[in-house]
């Protein structure tokens, strides 16, 4: 589905991502792991057009999506979440999810000023769908609460649900469980596996090994911007290079 062909990104003299090639299969939960500074987030930022790719190409289902901006990618079925929470705290929980449906909504200026029927119909239709999404993470009751009043763990889930609103085919999750406690981590992996995995392909960047091993279909390990290894979770756990470079000796996952 997603094909990354020898992409490189250089910051000053440092090659954050160096000649990286990778293939993501449709329907897979594909994890990208690696030590801090390995270039994982840079890679995500390159795929989603936040950073310009220095060299190399990225293809989505055969179409070139190299250097296409994040907002345009959404219309091609690619959506992302962020390592550092990006939630609109000034909006309510429901409004944050509604934002996910934004690309389907009528936003004509005059129509909005005069409350045309199409605006009202859209709003009604997508409120129902947004509430359905909130139900998946058990937040219906908090729908009208301001997002700023909610805990970090809930907002992390909210971000994933918001991304689902855009009905993506590929979703990039950048450290969705960073800073969460074990219970919340479990909830997020359940969400990822049961809800998300049925319909979409996932690229997961994460440090929590237990979770990565649990949910992934396939894993790519990065180190110093290069691909170190790839394979199924079992293969990665037993890969000597990976153990040496990343997991350290004697760690059992």
């Amino acid at each position: 589905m997603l094909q990354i062909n020898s992409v490189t990104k250089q910051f000053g003299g440092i090659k954050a991502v160096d000649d990286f090639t990778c293939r993501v299969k449709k329907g897979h939960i594909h994890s990208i792991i690696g030590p801090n500074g390995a270039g994982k987030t840079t890679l995500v930022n390159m795929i989603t057009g936040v950073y310009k790719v220095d060299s190399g190409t990225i293809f989505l289902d055969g179409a070139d999506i190299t250097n296409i901006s994040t907002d345009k990618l959404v219309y091609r079925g690619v959506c992302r979440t962020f390592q550092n929470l990006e939630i609109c705290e000034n909006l309510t929980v429901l409004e944050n999810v509604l934002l996910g449906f934004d690309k389907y909504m009528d936003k004509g200026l005059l129509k909005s000023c005069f409350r045309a029927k199409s605006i009202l119909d859209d709003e009604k239709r997508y409120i129902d769908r947004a509430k359905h999404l909130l139900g998946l993470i058990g937040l219906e009751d908090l729908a009208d609460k301001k997002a700023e009043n909610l805990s970090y763990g809930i907002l992390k889930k909210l971000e994933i649900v918001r991304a689902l609103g855009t009905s993506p085919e590929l979703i990039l999750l950048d450290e969705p469980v960073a800073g969460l406690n074990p219970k919340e981590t479990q909830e997020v992996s359940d969400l990822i596996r049961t809800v998300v995995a049925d319909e979409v392909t996932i690229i997961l960047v994460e440090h929590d090994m237990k979770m990565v091993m649990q949910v992934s279909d396939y894993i790519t390990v990065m180190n110093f911007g290069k691909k170190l290894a790839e394979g199924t979770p079992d293969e990665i756990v037993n890969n000597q290079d990976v153990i040496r470079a990343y997991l350290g000796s004697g760690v059992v996952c």
Partner: protein
Amino acid sequence: MLKRYNINRDILTLSMILVIAPFFFQNDFYYEIAIVSLLNALICIGLNMLMGYAGQVSLGHGAFAGLGGYIAVILGSKYGITPLFSIFIAVVTMSLFAFIISKPILRLKGHYLAMATLGIGIIISIVLNVEDELTGGSDGMSVDSFTIFGYEFVDSLQWYILCSFLLVFTIWMFSNLIDSPFGRVLRSIEGSEKAANSVGINVSHYKSIVFVISVVIATIAGSLYAFFSGFISPGEASFSHSIELVVMVVLGGLGRIYGAIIGAVILTILPQLLTSFEDYQTLIYGSIIIFVMIFMPKGIASVYEDVKGRLFASNK
């Protein structure tokens, strides 16, 4: 959920105040202050949309209002175009102008954006001062009377009614807009540009649109002010007028629909009330603003909303 006709308690209250207020006006001076308040409030609604909802600061809206006013006036006096049509041309010109400058300057953030709008405002003000063949220079120029399809506005009451209608209509449209998906996009930009971007929103496109809307409103208000006062001078486009408008929005309450009106009315009336203090006028004026900002950091409208929230809590 959105309602079809958004006639709510706040709009009715505003309309009622506007209807009742003239009974307390003892002479033309009261009307004059009221009309200036209403026109300032109009500009502040647009500025509030830009600052309070889309999170972009502008220190140039006084200048935009002034320039818009000049365009309308010059078209009328030099080319004999009727007032309504000259305002229309001014709006078109200014929206083009705003759209073009919005592309480079709205890439800037925070202080840099403020600096850029400040710079453009000052350039406008200098041009209006220097181009005296066209603008009359620092002496300003007189303005023909205002007519709509031949109906002439001479009386203060006529002006008051016109401006009141315009304000209520604008507020009504504005609250519709803010509650719509379009408004949600604006609020999301203020909340997190990255989040907005990640769900497919072209952030800079929306910033431009809002900037243009706010400049259009400023142009309309600025032109009407020129026609009302029968005179226009570069003072309208001065830096201090721009600052005054920003203070109105912040004092009234950023991101609160009625904040802009409250701020505009209070800051237009306050200097008149304080004239009796003579030498100490500016000192007291400044102190009041400082105290309001210390004790009501979210603006005066936030207090009104708190009170309303408590009064009508049981109704909901």
